[in-house]
């Protein structure tokens, strides 16, 4: 597998080089245009942004076809050159990056089209599309990067534009709080990433991926570096214990959530692990860490989703959980399965978020208990949402089934039995919370007061839903046994694929159906009494309070930091500056010959200084033996 992944360079035919750079530069150009003219252009800003990303998408198709034809390409230049450090930056086109180019540009394009309707009338709409463009461009650069330093730059670019977009409605305190939280939490993960890069540079003498992947680093050292790099991925991909920012990031406009959850930002962490896979393989312990963190994340997030009542938060926790599955897949060695899940998840999660956006747009609330009975009133939204839900729950033949099944299969065949069973349990929870959401929102009796005049969203919003719905239905096929695991073969460049295991497949179908059935019993039919679980139940309380992670960080990290800062400042003012002022006070008293001379005139002080200077010079001459 290492060979297949190691980026290698072939002679770049000029046209593919142009295609590659245009895919990246078009959204950048859109950003620059909109930063300058966005305010003036208003709603028309969307034309610029959408045409740029649409062109990038079409060019990405060309790039993928080029790669399918066996082509590989790399553009590079020397970023800087100091001492013995000459990092080469550039753009790398190989199966992995080509696949991601498609996902990123396609989802971004659909999200931007949807935003035309959703953000209609917002006074900063030009800035919104500018940020979306650059958010996309940063992610494309992460995807393309053949150098860890370049990855880090693009990575933080993704971070900062998510910061600006989550806090887009910055007048809202909760929005700017959420933006701050997202930035800070991911930055904590990035500290590990940064230290990993420093170590890597010290050990390998370079940050160019193809050089590093060709080396034979000692296993413990490689594992340490890989785990440090994985810290960055834990932050960005919202893995336990740094998952806390993603649900709060819901404060951003819903299209932004869709983009963050599907194609950019959170996918970056999974992609980073995939891209650095050869390094992880040099220190296999690191992969165990990835698998364990992924599994814990998948379970914890799914359990929190059971009690969440905000439609976007349920989806947010489902994202965290699904990202955990991806990490689990990468960690247990099911590399292609992990990436396949990233691919299918991008479509069905974008679909679910945009569907939620469509619902929120209609109901003006995010509380699921204000909804209900929306199905007949919003046919396209509800139908596509249910398709997305089926994909998330892992029901065949919807896309999520194929990829999740592959991950579980990987855990099973690699002997990670405990991980496998937690994965199965999480699949059960996933099906349950997904259909809890669907039954409450789209079925039953209307609850909110807005529901009476609810109507379907305009075509600019519903068409992206239909396209994503179709993808959520069929995208899994490309990795299914029926098409010869085409996706996996393409990504790994190898024909050794896992053969379907009837036990695993049957079990995962069974838990999905069970979960949906249970949700139907509880929320669809009301056959189960509503007070089964008391509000005082400790487990319920634990879940509603999200395992108290936010409180933990507040008391363990944030509060002490502020306390230390206060202490250091008072030390600075009282001790250090106090000493300085004390010295000044003593010397003026002495120098004044006990007269009151604190005149404040600099001439006087200068005079003392001059006197002091002369004394010093004489003294120095003396010790020098000149005098």
């Amino acid at each position: 597998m290492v060979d297949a992944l190691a980026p290698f360079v072939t002679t770049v035919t000029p046209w593919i080089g142009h295609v590659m750079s245009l895919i990246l530069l078009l959204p950048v150009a859109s950003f620059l245009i909109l930063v300058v003219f966005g305010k003036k252009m208003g709603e028309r800003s969307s034309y610029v942004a959408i045409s740029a990303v649409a062109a990038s998408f079409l060019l990405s198709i060309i790039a993928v076809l080029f790669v399918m034809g066996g082509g590989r390409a790399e553009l590079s230049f020397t970023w800087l050159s100091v001492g013995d450090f000459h990092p080469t930056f550039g753009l790398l086109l190989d199966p992995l990056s080509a696949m991601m180019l498609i996902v990123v540009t396609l989802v971004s394009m659909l999200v931007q089209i949807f935003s035309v309707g959703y953000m209609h009338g917002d006074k900063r709409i030009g800035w919104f599309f500018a940020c979306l463009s650059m958010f996309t461009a940063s992610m494309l650069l992460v995807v393309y990067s053949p150098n860890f330093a370049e990855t880090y730059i693009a990575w933080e670019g993704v971070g900062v534009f998510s910061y600006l977009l989550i806090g887009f409605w910055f007048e809202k305190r909760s929005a700017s709080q959420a933006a701050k939280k997202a930035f800070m939490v991911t930055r904590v993960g990035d500290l590990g990433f940064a230290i990993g890069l420093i170590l890597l540079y010290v050990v390998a003498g370079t940050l160019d991926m193809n050089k590093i992947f060709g080396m034979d680093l000692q296993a413990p050292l490689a594992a340490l570096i890989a785990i440090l790099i994985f810290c960055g991925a834990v932050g960005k991909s919202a893995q336990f214990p740094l998952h806390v920012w993603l649900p709060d990031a819901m404060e951003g406009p819903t299209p932004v959530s869709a983009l963050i959850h599907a194609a950019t930002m959170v996918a970056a962490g999974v992609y980073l692990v995939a891209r650095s896979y050869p390094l992880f393989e040099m220190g296999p312990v690191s992969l165990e860490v990835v698998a364990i963190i992924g599994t814990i994340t998948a379970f914890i997030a799914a359990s929190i989703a059971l009690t969440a009542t905000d439609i976007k938060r349920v989806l947010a926790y489902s994202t965290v959980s699904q990202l955990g599955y991806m990490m689990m897949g990468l960690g247990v060695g099911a590399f292609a399965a992990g990436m396949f899940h990233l691919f299918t998840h991008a479509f069905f999660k974008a679909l679910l978020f945009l569907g939620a956006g469509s619902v929120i747009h209609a109901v003006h609330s995010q509380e699921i208990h204000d909804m209900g009975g929306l199905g007949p009133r919003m046919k396209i939204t509800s139908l596509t949402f249910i398709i997305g839900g089926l994909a998330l729950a892992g029901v065949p033949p919807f896309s999520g089934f194929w990829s999740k099944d592959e991950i579980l299969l990987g855990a099973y065949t690699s002997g990670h039995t405990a991980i496998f069973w937690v994965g199965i349990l999480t699949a059960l929870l996933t099906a349950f919370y997904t259909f809890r959401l669907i039954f409450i929102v789209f079925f039953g009796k209307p609850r909110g007061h807005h529901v009476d005049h609810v109507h379907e969203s305009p075509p600019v919003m519903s068409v992206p839903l239909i396209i994503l719905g179709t993808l959520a239905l069929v995208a899994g096929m490309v990795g299914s046994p029926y098409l010869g695991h085409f996706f996996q073969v393409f990504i790994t460049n190898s024909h050794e694929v896992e053969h379907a295991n009837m036990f695993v497949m049957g079990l995962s179908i069974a838990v999905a159906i069970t979960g949906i059935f249970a949700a139907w019993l509880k929320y669809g039919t009301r056959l189960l009494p509503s007070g089964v679980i008391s509000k005082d139940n400790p487990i319920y309380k634990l879940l509603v309070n999200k395992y108290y992670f936010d409180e933990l960080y507040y008391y363990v990290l944030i509060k002490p930091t502020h306390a230390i800062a206060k202490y250091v400042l008072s030390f600075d003012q009282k001790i250090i500056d106090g000493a300085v002022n004390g010295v000044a006070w003593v010397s003026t008293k002495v120098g004044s010959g006990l007269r009151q001379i604190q005149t404040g005139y600099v001439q006087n002080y200068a005079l003392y200084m001059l006197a002091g200077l002369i004394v010093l010079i004489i003294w120095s001459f003396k010790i020098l033996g000149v005098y």
Partner: protein
Amino acid sequence: MSYPLLTITIFLPLAGALLLQFIPRSQANVIRTIALLIALADLALGIPILTNYHLGQAGMQLVEKVSWIPSLGISYFVGLDGLSLPLYEMTLLLMVVSVLASWSIKDRVREHYSMLLLLAVGMLGTFAALDFILFYIFWELVLIPMYFIIGIWGGENRTYAAVKFFLYTLAGSVLMLVGILALYFTSGLNTFDMVKLMEAGYHHYLATFIFITFFFGFAIKVPMWPFHTWLPDAHVQAPTAGSVLLAGVLLKMGTYAFVRIIVQILPGEFTKFAPYIALLAIISIVYGAYTALAQKDLKKMVAYSSVSHMGYVMLGIAALTPVALNGAILQMINHGLITGMLFLLVGYIYERTHTRDISKLGGISVKIPVLGGMFVFAALASLGLPGLSGFVGELLILLGSYTAYQIYTILAVFTLALTAFYLIRANQNAIFGIPKMAMDGFKDANAREFFSMIPLVIFIVLIGIYPKPFLNYIDPAVNTVLQIIRGS
């Protein structure tokens, strides 16, 4: 070479200051325009300096040397290398910025601009001087106009701040003078020529004594912990232009002198004491970040952030590896641009809100989005956001320092989170959110304010995206420095 470009650029502001004395005080706009034209002309002269500079060539260039007091070995000797050229050019740029920033000063306009131009003479001269006496004169020349700028046009507590600044830095320069004289009398070369002293190397038993005098002189200027307490007072009380030049240029005089004088003339002593300098550097980094986090005053926060950021520069210098030293020199420029921009913005926002209390600000971006957005940009640059210039410097410093100081480097990386914390918090509380005061009459950045920031934005982005052309100037000088270190 046909024209003495360095002499012209150094003394053009002096001519400008003299010219201003002939303009009636009442003609404030004429005075402002003349000052601006002088600063622009000086900046324009920076272009032939760049084009006449031979890239990739080590050693001093654009050298002008005239014997001054031959019996004492004093000469008028100026020149630039890859260490001083970037600082010189940055000073030219920041002069234009500060002239624009001072436009709103209404009180004693002529005196203000005269002081500003005099300050330029001192700053440019300090970076170009290659004779110790000349260096000392320029170094001291900086002190006086800055004292008046803080003391006359400063905030409420200006006298205290000005006197503190003056005494503190004067104490430093007096020590430096002692060191210079000791060096002169014991080197046996009978010269104040810095280049000759570098080439000869200093091998006298007084080396440690001289090192200590220089160390105090420069550490105060940087400032390194625990000699930093003049800085928050001076920065906060100074008017906007004063803060920009203090942070942008004056602090760099300290780090510049470390590399130019201590490292190159006393390489043995520097190598010996480098671990202690690195210790003070890491203390400055962490301590500055914590004190910045505790600030309620926006300007004070920026001031304390300088203590932390200059600590990174000193760590890079103390590491003495090619990568770290390149990073340190680049970071001097970056800090000048970024912190200069932050002080500009704090000043512009203050002119509107009349408060710098972070808890009373808020919602700046709602009413004046350009200034708010620029502040967010500068804050992101300051926290080392990749893609902007601050990151490149920090990256090189950290990559290069690890081999020398592992624990310190890891601590410095962790402090980056703290840096992000206080800056993001400032964004959140001062710029975002709902306006906490009536902002009806507020106008967004006018053309003058806008154009004072744009060049900074451009360079912050350019260096951040493609630093190679900038580092190409610095790298040869770093090689020279490290050869001296290796030779010691």
